[in-house]
């Protein structure tokens, strides 16, 4: 296991590549999810407001 993590002495480079990529991919997905949530919430609020106006 340690041997695997050491990557033959190249650990900082290999893991630096893979982990940064994994991290940023997660950031992109979380950001999308957050954007979708807030947009949906906003659209619902707007829809409710227009409904109230109509009544």
């Amino acid at each position, binding site marked *: 296991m340690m041997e695997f993590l050491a990557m033959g002495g190249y650990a900082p480079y*290999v893991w630096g590549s893979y982990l940064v990529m994994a991290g940023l991919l997660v950031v992109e997905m979380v950001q999308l999810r957050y954007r979708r949530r807030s947009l*949906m919430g906003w659209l619902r609020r707007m829809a409710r407001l227009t409904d109230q106006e109509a009544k």
Partner: protein
Amino acid sequence: MSERSIQWFRFTAPANFYDLAGRLVPWFAALTVALFAAGLYLGLVVAPPDYQQGDSYRIMYIHVPTAWMGMFLYVLMAIYAAIGLIWRIKMAEIMAKAIAPTGALMTFFALWTGALWGRPTWGVFWVWDARLTSMLILLFLYLGYMALHAAIDDRQRASNASAVLAMVGVVNVPIIYFSVQWWNTLHQGASITVTDAPTMATIMFVTLLIMTLAAWMYSIAVVLARARIEVLERERKASWVKERLEAET
């Protein structure tokens, strides 16, 4: 013929796109997870170390696919932008805009991994190698596209103007690539280019293929998800948006 064109038209209509993409995204996401899992296992555990570069060559499994994705996505973005500009198809405009951030991210990964691979290989983080330099310029092109899109308030004008920029960019990409390569050979720079792994073993090749597919699936999933959000934003007053809102609570 006419039936087919009607079919095509159906998917360019925002509401249909929204539903279709909503059904597709989970599938592409699942494929992404499966392919990444397989690719990472093969690339990090199964594949043997390179006889020259040791384990550092494993960076290739993400460097090469992301570099390809960065370039492919730019071309794809320009194609969508052109379709949107010429035939005024809203969905194409939205797709172009949705591709840009992912394309830029992929290009950034290619640069980042290239630098980290360069250090053990050449002893420096950055060499002005033809491919890395072209990728850097490609990243700037992406950033310019997104900055222009963000700078213009009117959505229609923003789409049209950045479409012109994307088309100009895509014409320039090969010119830039060849001139940079030419410059590189003239200046006798680094003679090892990053992607020339010496005699690639089958297992390495298969792994690379799987990782490339994974990058594709990831890009498709994320771009479709982002395009759905863009559609909602653009069409927020349309009646179909309201129906979907109620259905998804």
